């Protein structure tokens, strides 16, 4: 699919050099369609995180081709990679909010790289999106005044604030209890679907597999053949009652 937000072909990656090189990804093909929510699962050490950092332009490619939001990452410069990252929303295992900023300022950090919006517009927009994650009244709280689930919801708001073309999340529920984790990913799903933003999420959490449009399993650096036709996403299910 040419206009897929994520399209990887034959991506191979190894840590270490020469004799010590240890292949972690082998001939990985994966694509994420517009607005699609793809969950990536697999045993520990199978290379999920590595794959995500390659797609997120956080790591330089070694072999194969990866087109993310129209940018070919094989041979991309540091500058191109930094520019691409601005168009991707990241959600990490930990919230990684800046402790010295309020929730609203943290969300606004995702907008400060965009010269088109002024300070007032940024804060208003941050406030709006905090409202959308149910934290409209906690905008002036610092992260240490929020609960774990609330922090992760601020992180979701931050990932979405910059109007990203893609969201990458690596075990965003790992630091949360099941109940809270479920709430956060469903919230994320609702917001992403509403805006048509595709999500690629790594997870071990069986309780959240139901949010996916498609589940991709990895093992030992390879994508396992899926039950359905490979590459063809299932039709989008309705996401609202």
């Amino acid at each position, binding site marked *: 699919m040419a206009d897929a*937000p994520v399209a990887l072909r034959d991506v191979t990656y190894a840590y270490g050099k020469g004799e010590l090189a240890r292949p972690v990804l082998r001939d990985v093909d994966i694509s994420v369609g517009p607005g699609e929510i793809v969950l990536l699962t697999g045993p520990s050490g199978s290379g999920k995180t590595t794959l995500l*950092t390659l797609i997120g332009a956080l*790591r330089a490619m070694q072999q194969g081709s990866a087109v993310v939001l129209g940018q070919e990452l094989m041979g991309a410069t540091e500058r191109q990679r930094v520019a691409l*990252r*601005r*168009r991707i929303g990241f959600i990490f295992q930990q919230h*990684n909010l*800046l402790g010295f900023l309020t929730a609203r300022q943290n969300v606004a*950090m995702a907008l400060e790289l965009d010269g088109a919006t002024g300070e007032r517009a940024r804060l208003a927009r941050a406030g709006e999106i905090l409202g959308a994650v149910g934290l409209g009244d906690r905008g002036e709280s610092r992260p240490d005044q929020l609960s774990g689930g609330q922090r992760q919801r601020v992180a979701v708001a931050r990932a979405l604030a910059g109007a990203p073309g893609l969201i990458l999340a690596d075990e965003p529920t790992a630091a949360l209890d099941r109940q809270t984790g479920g709430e956060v990913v469903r919230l994320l799903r*609702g917001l992403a679907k509403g805006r048509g933003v595709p999500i690629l999420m790594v997870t071990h959490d069986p309780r959240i597999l139901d949010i996916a449009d498609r589940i991709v399993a990895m093992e030992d650096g390879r994508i396992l053949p899926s039950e359905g036709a490979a590459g063809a996403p299932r039709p989008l299910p309705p996401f609202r009652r």
Partner: protein
Amino acid sequence: MNVLARAPPAPPPPAHGALPWAGQPAGPAPPPPAAPSRAPSPLAALRLPLRLAWRQLRFEKARLFSAIAGVMFASVLVFMQLGFRSALFDSATALLAAFRADIFLMHPMTLVSFRPETMPRARASQALALPEVQAAVPVYLAQATWRSPENGSRRPIQIIGFDLEAGVMDFPGLAPLIERLKRPDSMAFDLRSRPEFGDIARLLHERGPFDAQVGNRHMEVVGLIEIGPSFGADGNVVMSELNFRRAVKERAASAIDLVAIRLLPGADPQAAKRRLAEALPGDVMVLTQPELVAWERRYWEDATPIGFIFMFGSLMGLVVGMVIVYQILFSDIASHLREYATLKAMGYSNGYLGRVVLSAALILAVLGFLPGFAASTLLYDVVGKGTFLPLAMDTERALGVFAMIFAMCAAAGLLAMRKLRDANPADMF
């Protein structure tokens, strides 16, 4: 499935309206926003990192205050060192700086005024040959022993003898004394001489003119003038040429130490200086007054470790300040590596984060310098009064020290910035 956990109980349309940017839930998903964002304006590219740095510094008050204290300490140290240095050099050349003339002639071998090389008195009259020279006054300099009229202790004192009526060397307080100084064996005492010479001002006030011993001669102190002690002379007395010869018998009248020249009003000192240098033989050097002072000052800078000592002291202050600022910035980065890495993952460039660190350094420079400046101004006043050193804050030095503190903090920031490389966004997942 597909339960929006926090979906409001209201029916879909209003609920949807609560998310103004949300696309239509039905039909194909709207395309992702494609247009890459505009780059921030250059001003915002400096202002936003500065604001971020300030918010981070402000958050940890204890760290901020220790950093400010460090920079303040460095500022005070540098201010004091530079203040002492210039005060000592200023006082080293106080005698020559007190002379009032446009141009001076001096023997080229004279290194320092208290140990002059003599030159022929004829040079003064030769200088008069130039039309723009209004007056050329021979000056005699010598050191002699002064016996304190209070307790009899003896100390060397500087004697300055010249034609008082020529009106060339016009020390403050000299003019009204000229008539009395014409009397044999009379002299004027420098009231800013060090106190060890005796409290001459009080004695003069109590007794009127009184006898004091200079060299082996008794001479009368008839009044007070103002010059100030210098390195070569703790005190000064001024007398007429004739009295000088009486006090310093071994000196031939034809051997003089300095010629002070006054030019006609409107004459160009530089041009006159060049013409004098051409007209006079090689045993004299022609100097303007600032050059004469600089000559003397250079002697003290080269011949003594004073300059080095104070430069070393200033440098130590800056190094200590830099280490403190570096430590603070470094630990700030080290303890926020995850946050910095997150910012990198969000698309913040290394350059942007570097600007954040540099901004923090420069904020510390300003916040530490201002109280340091205030404290130093106060200390100058207190210490200056206690040591008789001319310590005073001036704009030039304030700006100079600020530049040094600024550079110190910038260097610390640049060093600390290297730690940013450890913030690797790929390690964040």
